[in-house]
């Protein structure tokens, strides 16, 4: 067992595979000696050198394009987009190219690539540096989408992402990078396996990324109020651990889905629709979404706080279901 931060765990996952497999490499803006905008790759340049920790100009489309072309020709790239928001300038590469190639080419090509997207708000980075855009990516057949909330999950999921023969998007929350946690083992965590972050009986709270912590806080408060909440972190948004969710909902009959996305058109909505479709008979009340407001992300700390969903919101929403 080791204690490390979420950021270090991501680095550890990348480094483990890079040590084992010379075809794994990292590219992105300032990922080299600078260590990445959030310091995630700090030290990797020293260990692996500039050939494998590869600085790029400010050309996100070309970063993903390079990842695609090199994956198609035998390498296993990890591409960092400095902020998830900048994926807007690489959507074609991600969506029309990487996600569809295998299918368009009749299954005859593999694209083992990982794209890292640091997302999320909370640091007054305003509307263009704080978004949670996972809903877009889950909507794209051909992509897998993962979103770890803890150092252990970050490490295990990173290993699986690198091992996967398909494009995998890893959403990382920038405000989690410095969060510490225990890492018990270095085994890959299979994509499509969710995790119960807290056991409970009366209500299921499905939470992603940083909202897992808010959910856990809310669960504590709910306990005081006599409600036993189960907190589930899907970790992998697609493929989704449907069994884990079904089991939990069959037990609790009530569900909150909480994500940091703007509510309208969110992945939280997809989860809600799915649960209603498949588990309607198990539900005693409608699935309730606790998300961010339907606004761009404001700069001022007090406004940003008002924008973001939090434990109190989850608590309120949960209470309302009883």
């Amino acid at each position, binding site marked *: 067992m080791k204690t490390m931060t979420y950021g270090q765990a991501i680095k550890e996952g990348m480094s483990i595979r890079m040590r084992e497999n010379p075809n794994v490499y990292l590219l992105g803006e300032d990922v080299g000696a600078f260590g990445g905008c959030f310091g995630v790759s700090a030290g990797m340049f020293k260990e692996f050198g500039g050939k494998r920790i590869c600085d790029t100009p400010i050309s996100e489309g070309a970063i993903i394009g390079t990842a695609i*072309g090199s994956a198609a020709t035998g390498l296993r790239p990890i591409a960092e987009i400095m902020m998830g928001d900048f994926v807007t300038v690489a959507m074609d590469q991600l969506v029309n190219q990487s996600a569809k190639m295998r299918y368009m080419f009749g299954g005859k090509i593999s694209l083992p690539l990982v794209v890292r997207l640091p997302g999320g708000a909370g640091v007054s980075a305003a509307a263009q540096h704080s978004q949670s855009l996972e809903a877009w990516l889950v909507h794209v057949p051909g992509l897998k989408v993962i979103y770890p909330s803890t150092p252990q999950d970050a490490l295990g999921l990173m290993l699986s992402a690198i091992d996967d023969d398909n494009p995998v998007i890893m959403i990382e929350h920038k405000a989690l990078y410095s969060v510490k946690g225990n890492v018990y083992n270095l085994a890959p965590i299979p994509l499509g396996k969710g995790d119960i972050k807290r056991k409970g009986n009366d209500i299921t709270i499905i939470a992603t990324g940083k909202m897992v912590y808010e959910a856990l806080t809310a669960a504590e408060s709910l306990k005081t109020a006599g409600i036993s909440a189960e907190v589930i972190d899907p970790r992998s948004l697609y493929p989704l651990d449907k069994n884990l969710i079904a089991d939990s909902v069959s037990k609790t009959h009530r569900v909150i889905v909480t994500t940091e996305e703007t509510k309208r058109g969110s992945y939280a909505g997809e989860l809600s629709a799915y649960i209603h479709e498949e588990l309607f008979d198990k539900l005693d009340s409608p699935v309730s979404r606790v998300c961010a407001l339907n606004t761009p992300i404001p700069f001022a700390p007090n406004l940003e706080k008002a924008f973001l969903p939090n434990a109190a919101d989850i608590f309120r929403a949960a209470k309302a279901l009883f």
Partner: protein
Amino acid sequence: MNISKETMQHMYITMKRIREFELKTQELFAEGKVPGFVHLYLGEEAVSAGTCEYLNDNDYITSTHRGHGHIIAKGGDMKYMMAELFGKATGYCKGKGGSMHIADRDKGILGANGIVGAGQDIALGAGFSINYKGTKQVCICFFGDGSTNQGTFHESLNLASIWHLPIVYVCENNNYAISMSQSRHQHIQNISDRGTAYGIPSLHIDGNNVIAVYKTIAAAVDRARKGEGPTLIECKTYRWRGHFEGDPAIYKPQEEQEAWLKKDPLLQFKTYLESNHFFNEDQLHIWDTAVCQEIDEAVRFADESPLPDINTVVNDVYSDITEEVRVR
């Protein structure tokens, strides 16, 4: 540079294959046998034939929406191509891709592409792999004049330049991006002028002269293999047909069209071969006939092939997950 007779023969046959494949496709499209969008390469045969002649099977190419010529020249099988155009199970992509998405990894064909400019980025990755592994292959990146106004062109050339990637950028300047003539879509006469912006050696040549193409490409490929980085080559040529089949192309001035028809790259090459006594008419005729037979066989193959089983619609999305058939 001396070009062997064998090379000339092969280039001639390649050009003829492309010509006949496209003429047949034109016909089949009109008959309704080929669905979707079809962009013909008629009139541009010398570019891909001259370019790919100098490549090895394990060299890469990236292609465009107008990809048939590239794929044939790089050694793609016309049977599987035609079957793909028909949307048949035996096609290159099992009917899932169609004209705009043909790929053949064994031949280094990294795919035709429906997105203008997308191949430029993908080529970067192929070049990156080559340098990373030190395998001395090259990647040819084909693209049109119109695509040089996409941001991807710019980003690609810049990266290839700083990374010394073994990419040869082959611009097929056929003077049009759909209805926009080059003079309307950019303010320069030679696209090769754009190389300066990246410190990439650049030149423009007669794209209808297959010998010129071959020689120019050869030099650029040699340079790339030696680790000296990318080259940008603009091949001036012309699109005989409309942008896609169905476009009457009334925006093309008639004199312009006629002048270019006179510069038929295949006919020019034929004349060259005959007048220099490399091959006589009878010899060429034999090859022509063989090509036409190949095409007929390709069409027969496509025609007789089964449609894809509709259950295959959910396959091939991932390497390891099969989507449920009725998730709707």
